C-alpha cells in the first residue's frame, strides 16, 4: 500500500509556479531521495504533503487521508522535519519533546517511554536538560528529528536532515534513517548525492517544479551509461596529442573533454559502434608519448546524471 500518494500537485507564488503537476507515490519500506537544484520546488512539495501549505491544484494523501479534506487525520500520521529544523529556542530539550508529544496525543507512561526511546535512539541524553538555543547545529537537527519521530509515525518527511552537519554527524543521521526505514515511508530532500546512494531506495529528481526522473539510483546511473565508454585522464600538456591519437586509433569514436583539473584533463571516449579496450588504447597512447594518468571504463556518478538531467540545456 502506498502511504504517500501525490497527484498533480501544483503551487504558484505570484508569477512563479514553484510546483508544477508533481506526481509521486511512496510505499512502506521505501526511502525516497528528493533531489533538485535550489528553488526546484522540493520544500514547497514537502510543505504541501505535510499539510502546511494548501496546493492550488492536485492532491496529497497520507495513509489514505487526503491532506486537505482531512488534515488532522493526515497530520497525525506524519512526522515532519521542516527545513532548518526550527524549534522553540527558549525551551529545554525534554520540555520541547514533551510538548510535541502531548500535542501528538501521547500521555503518561506512553509519553515517558517514547521520550526515553528518543533520548537513546537519537543520542540526546547528553543535552536532555539543556536549552535548545545553546545546542550545536548537530544537536538541534537531532532534536528536530526526535520531534518528528516521537509518535512513531508511518510517514516521515525530512527536509534536508543533514544540512550543516559535520561528516560524522551526517553518517550517524544516515544510519538512523536506514535503521527506521523498514516499516515507514520516508521522503528525504537533499542536495548531497552520495546521501541518496547511501540511504535511498529511489531517487526523484525535480527541477522547476516538475519531476524529471523517478527511479532507483542505480537504474538512473545505468540508464546514463553508454556501454564501452572509456575515461582517460592525461596531463593537460598532452591533451591535444591524445585527442588526435584517439581519433586515429578508434576511428569514428567521439572524444569529449569531461573536465580539466590541476593540470590534468579527463577525456571521454565514446565508441560509436567500434569497441576499444582501455588497455589497447592505453598502450597506443603511451607509444605516442602521451602521459596517461588514469584510464578505465566510464561509469557516470549520480552527480553526472543529476547535472545532465537538471541543467537547463540538458536532455529532458
Amino acid at each position: 500500500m502506498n502511504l504517500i500518494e501525490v497527484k498533480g500537485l501544483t503551487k504558484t507564488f505570484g508569477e512563479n509556479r514553484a510546483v508544477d503537476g508533481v506526481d509521486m507515490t511512496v510505499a512502506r519500506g521505501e526511502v525516497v531521495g528528493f533531489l533538485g537544484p535550489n528553488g526546484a520546488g522540493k520544500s514547497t512539495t514537502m510543505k504541501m504533503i505535510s499539510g502546511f501549505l494548501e496546493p492550488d491544484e492536485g492532491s496529497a494523501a497520507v495513509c489514505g487521508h487526503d491532506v486537505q479534506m482531512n488534515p488532522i487525520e493526515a497530520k497525525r500520521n506524519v512526522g515532519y522535519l521542516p527545513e532548518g529544523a526550527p524549534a522553540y529556542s527558549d525551551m529545554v530539550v525534554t520540555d520541547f519533546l514533551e510538548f510535541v508529544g502531548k500535542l501528538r496525543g501521547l500521555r503518561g507512561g506512553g509519553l515517558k517511554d517514547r521520550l526515553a526511546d528518543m533520548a537513546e535512539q537519537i543520542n540526546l541524553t547528553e543535552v536532555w536538560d539543556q536549552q535548545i538555543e545553546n545546542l550545536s547545529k548537530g544537536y538541534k537537527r537531532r532534536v528536530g528529528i526526535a520531534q518528528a519521530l516521537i509518535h512513531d509515525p508511518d510517514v516521515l518527511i525530512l527536509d534536508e536532515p543533514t544540512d550543516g552537519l559535520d561528516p560524522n554527524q551526517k553518517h550517524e543521521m544516515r544510519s538512523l534513517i536506514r535503521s527506521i526505514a523498514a516499516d515507514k515511508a520516508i521522503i528525504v530532500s537533499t542536495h548531497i548525492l552520495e546521501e541518496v546512494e547511501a540511504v535511498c531506495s529511489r531517487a526523484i529528481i525535480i527541477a522547476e517544479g516538475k519531476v524529471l526522473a523517478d527511479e532507483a539510483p542505480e537504474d538512473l546511473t545505468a540508464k546514463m551509461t553508454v556501454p564501452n565508454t572509456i575515461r582517460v585522464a592525461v596531463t593537460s600538456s598532452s591533451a591535444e596529442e591524445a585527442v588526435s591519437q584517439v581519433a586515429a586509433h578508434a576511428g569514428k569514436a567521439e572524444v569529449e573533454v569531461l573536465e580539466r583539473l590541476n593540470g590534468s584533463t579527463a577525456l571521454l571516449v565514446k565508441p560509436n559502434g567500434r569497441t576499444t579496450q582501455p588497455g589497447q588504447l592505453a598502450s597506443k597512447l603511451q607509444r605516442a608519448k602521451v602521459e596517461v594518468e588514469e584510464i578505465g571504463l566510464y561509469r557516470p556518478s549520480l552527480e553526472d546524471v543529476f547535472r545532465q538531467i537538471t541543467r537547463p540545456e540538458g536532455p529532458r
Partner: protein
Amino acid sequence: MSTSLQTIGIVLAREFRGYFATPLAAIFLAVFAALSAGLAFFVTGFFDRGQADLSSFFAWHPWLFMILMPAIGMRLWAEERRSGTIELLMTLPVRTWELVTAKFLAGWAFTGVALLATTPMWFTVNYLGDPDNGVIAASYIGSWLMAGAFLALATCMSALTKNQVIAFIVATIAGFLLVMAGFDLVLATVRDWAPVGLTEMVQSLSFLSHFNRLTQGVIELPTAVFFISMIVLCLWINVQAVDLKKAQ
C-alpha cells in the same frame, strides 16, 4: 471537543511558561506595577484626594494597556513566523483556532497576573479607609476585560506581519484610536462626512467610555459584551490572518 480543549490547554501552558522563561515577565510585571502605582500616587494624587477609592489608579489603565498589551502581543505570531516554528506547530494535528485561542488566553492570563500583582493597592485603601470594594472588584474585572481587547488587537497585528516593531506600532495606534473614539479628536474626523449613525457607532467603540462605566461600579452587561465581542472579532481575524500569511 475535549481534544480541542486539551490542545488549547497544552499550548496555553507552554506559552504561559514561555513568559517566565525570559526576564520579559519580570520586567513587564515590574513596569506595570511601578507605572500604575506611581502614576496613581504622584500624578493623580492618590493621597491628596483624601478618598478611599482606587479611581486614580484605574484611570491610567487604558493608557497603560494601550502600550503594554502591544508589547506582549507583538511577538505571539511574528516570532513564530520569523523563527520558522510556525511550520512545526501547524503541521501538528491541531487547528488554527485552537492555537490562536491558546496563545491569546496565555497572554491574557499573564495580564491577570500583572493585575493581581497590584492588589496591595487594594489592601492599602482598605487599611486607610472604607472603600466600596464592589466598585473596586468591578474595576479590576473591567480592566482585565479591556486589557484582553487590547491584547487581541495586538496579536491580530502580530499575525499580519513578521516584523514585531511594526506589529507594536500599528497595534498601539489602533489601540489609541479605540481609546479616543469617544473624543472629538477622533469623532471630528468622522462627523464631517459620515451619517449620524456611523458617528454614534464610532463613539460607541470608545474603550474609555466603556471602561469608565465599569470603574463607576456599574457592571453593565453590554459593556462586558462589548469587550468580549472585540476579543472574539479580533481573534477571528487573527485566525484568518494566520492561515493566509503563515507561509510568507
